[in-house]
């Protein structure tokens, strides 16, 4: 199938040559984040939009949902306890207020009085207790169960073996407790300053027990589902469409302008762009075909958002042992030119591992001397000449999704100048992940991967490089680094914690940095948005859109 899709790209490349003629003049409108005004024009009479969700969500069960599409739909049909504001701080939403105890280990949410399920029942703290315990339960087999591991007893309950352990007892011991209808008390294993932001994640939404008891696995079908958010799930034709309608009975329905959100699922980028250009779709979430970016960027409908993600090359430090060689290889990569000519979405050259936009970025970012935007070939060559026994033949592994090879070829050319000859090997994504390990594969010298954060604290990025991290395939293990990460886990004060993260970044990329990872760039999201919604349609760093803020203008 892979070869087929390559042919597909080729064929479409041919036709896109013809399409270039259709491109309109440039319009450098930048994202005006957060504004919900209707400056662009008067409100349209019909507040309906059609978006392309992209791919079929694996599930609309908050416990089981694991992708961007489901997160985006769920956060609009359900009512999260807290939401993230523009600066990614947690602000009250379905919870009227929240309070953290002095030792930082107990968080208490007080729910609003006017929360209702679509069946008329009130949403209570018990609903949240039930939902969180359900997601952690071993029987559900939820991907995101680990999001709850910061709660007392959650990991034990999730790891419980129904054949051996008393799971019910472990369930009762889990530190989430509805004190009364309106009060939800959560006990954490350590003070976790990021816990509140984490609660904005879709896995922390409440689900309706009645619907689940009655319909089992099928409770998320439109006929069965009971929701509590600003929009209702009107229809779900698998792999084809998911349509939402405004819920007029929602607590703050007056502030919601859109009456309807038609959603299509066009997974192929080119097909999606064509549907957009034919006027069948108003908003195209990212997934724009790489070959088309340069053309689409010139259209007035193109919009770009920073993303909380880092594209990087991991280095097997057991194969490339000399830190000078790793530094030289980092210096040689012309990041800015890779962004300008290949990635093309104004990504930022990475100067550390934690991406821009992360709270505390300025304090955390090491502004690594080894990661200059344009690269520094002179210094790289100089360093390389100092390497006692350099590894001159290396193998660079990438997965076979579009775009990675082009970047790898550019890097290969840069390293060639250092006298390093690299062989690029490509693998299908699933095989690739298994191949890389951990345990790290010894055939791999360099590997490409990306990391997209799912909650807004740098720990989500930096903990990747601890010795026993399940995502560390570099063989890198530094006890000082691990100690810092451990210390950060229990440091409640934000500034103090950012400072620790800064020290950790320094160990990796600073003047004396170990360079087990060569960060390439911080991701961005490129979207196409019809001009009638462009003003109000916003995507946050976690790739989420709050549809309650969207207004269609004339």
């Amino acid at each position, binding site marked *: 199938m892979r070869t087929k899709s390559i042919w597909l790209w080729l064929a479409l490349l041919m036709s896109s040559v013809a399409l270039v003629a259709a491109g309109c003049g440039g319009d450098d409108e930048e994202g005006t984040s957060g504004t919900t005004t209707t400056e662009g024009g008067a409100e349209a009479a019909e507040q309906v939009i059609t978006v392309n969700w992209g791919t079929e969500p*694996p599930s609309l069960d908050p416990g089981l949902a694991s992708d961007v599409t489901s997160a985006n739909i769920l956060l609009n049909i359900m009512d999260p306890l807290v939401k993230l504001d523009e600066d990614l701080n947690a602000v009250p939403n379905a919870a009227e207020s929240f309070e953290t105890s002095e030792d930082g280990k107990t968080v208490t949410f007080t729910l609003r009085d006017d929360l209702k399920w679509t069946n008329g029942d009130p949403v209570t703290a018990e609903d949240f207790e039930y939902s969180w315990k359900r997601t952690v339960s071993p029987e559900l087999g939820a991907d995101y169960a680990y999001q709850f591991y910061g709660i007392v007893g959650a990991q034990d309950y999730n790891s419980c073996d129904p054949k051996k352990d008393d799971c019910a007892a472990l369930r009762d011991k889990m530190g989430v407790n509805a004190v009364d209808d309106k009060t939800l008390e959560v006990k954490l294993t350590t003070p976790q300053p990021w816990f509140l932001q984490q609660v904005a994640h879709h896995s922390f939404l409440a689900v309706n027990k009645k619907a689940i008891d009655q319909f089992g696995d099928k409770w998320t079908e439109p006929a069965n589902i009971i929701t509590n958010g600003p929009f209702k799930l009107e229809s779900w034709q698998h792999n084809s469409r998911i349509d939402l309608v405004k819920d007029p009975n929602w607590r703050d329905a007056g502030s919601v302008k859109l009456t309807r959100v038609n959603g299509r699922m*066009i997974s192929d980028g080119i097909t999606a762009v064509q549907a957009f250009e034919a006027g069948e779709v108003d908003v195209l979430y990212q997934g724009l075909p790489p070959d088309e970016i340069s053309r689409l960027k010139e259209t007035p409908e193109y919009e770009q958002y920073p993303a909380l993600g880092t594209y990087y090359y991991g280095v097997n430090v057991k194969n490339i042992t000399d830190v000078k060689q790793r530094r030289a290889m980092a210096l040689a990569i012309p990041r800015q030119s890779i962004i300008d000519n290949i990635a093309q979405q104004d990504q930022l050259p990475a100067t550390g591992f934690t991406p821009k936009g992360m709270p505390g970025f300025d304090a955390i970012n090491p502004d690594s001397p080894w990661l200059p935007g344009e690269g520094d070939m002179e210094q790289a060559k100089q360093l390389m000449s100092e390497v006692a026994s350099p590894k001159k033949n290396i193998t660079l592994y990438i997965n076979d999704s579009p775009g990675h090879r082009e970047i790898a070829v550019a890097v290969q050319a840069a390293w060639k100048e250092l006298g390093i000859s690299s062989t690029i090997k490509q693998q299908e994504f699933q095989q690739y992940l298994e191949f890389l390990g951990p345990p790290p594969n010894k055939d791999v010298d360099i590997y490409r991967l990306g990391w997209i954060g799912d909650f807004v604290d740098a720990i989500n990025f930096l903990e990747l490089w601890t010795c026993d991290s399940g995502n560390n395939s570099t063989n890198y293990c530094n006890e000082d680094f691990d100690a810092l990460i451990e210390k950060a886990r229990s440091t409640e004060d934000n500034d103090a914690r950012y400072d620790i993260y800064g020290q950790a970044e320094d160990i990796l990329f600073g003047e004396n940095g170990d360079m087990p990872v060569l960060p390439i760039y911080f991701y961005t999201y490129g979207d196409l948005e019809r001009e009638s919604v462009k003003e109000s349609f916003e995507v946050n760093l976690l790739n989420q859109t709050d549809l309650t803020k969207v207004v269609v203008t004339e």
Partner: protein
Amino acid sequence: MLKFIVRRIFWTIPVLLVVIFLTFMMMRQIGGNPFRHSERAVPEAVQRNLEAKFHVNDPWWKQYAYYVKGVFTLDFGPSLVLRGQTVNDIIKEHFPKSIELGLYAFLFAIVVGVPLGVIAALKHNTAVDYGAMFFSNVFHAIPSFLVATLMIYWIALKLGAVPTSGWATWEHKLLPSIALGFAPMALFARLVRGTMLETLQQDYVRTARAKGLRYRRVVGLHVLRNSLIPVITAAGPLLGFIITGSFVIELIFNIPGIGQYYVTAVNARDYSVVMGLTVLLSVLIIFANLVVDILYGILDPRTRDART
């Protein structure tokens, strides 16, 4: 004849078992983790829970036996990736759309291809013949995804005559059916032309003409009927071609058929969906070949005796 049919049906069972076995083994050989959807590693406990839930940590022979039992009771199990959906749900919802697309494409191929071949044969070595053959050679050679892309660009995007993608009204269905039907149409045209020309030289045609039968009747009754035999022979394997071709067409036109699911399922290592769809498609192709063999017997009595 009946004995022949019954025997053929029984033969499908071992064939099916082999198909299941091979798919089962191959899927497990390619590696990958159905429970990992991104770069993010799956925590140990989560992985264990999922493996237990979907019985993927049982020994392979147990899983295989379990699966074969499922196939013969028509229960293909739950999808490992699309939580809450069973393979049966997926087939029920999406298979009819693929069948519909395949049928339209087939219909297009026959309705356009056969007359084209007939005309080319009757106007042998004229401009009409050359024109028709040039047309069909070109479309036989051009892959369907290119035809599809060009049609979307010109007809849907530039002319705005039909929607670019989706599967709801007849306007949505027009382009994909034609795009998928072009190659078989071209094949049919060339096949029919070839066999018609051959049949027209046959003694019994000359005899029929000599008897005083009108040309039109000779062609319509004797020549055409015998010329269709190779078409039917080709139709069986062609069905397989149409199904695999539809994978790409479904992707380009965003048709929620099983082709799209098949590809996604392989990439995501959704074992049960891949298995279920493979079994389904095998049954379909086996069945199509069976029907072809039976039709063959009906159209050409000579083959019947040899086979019983």
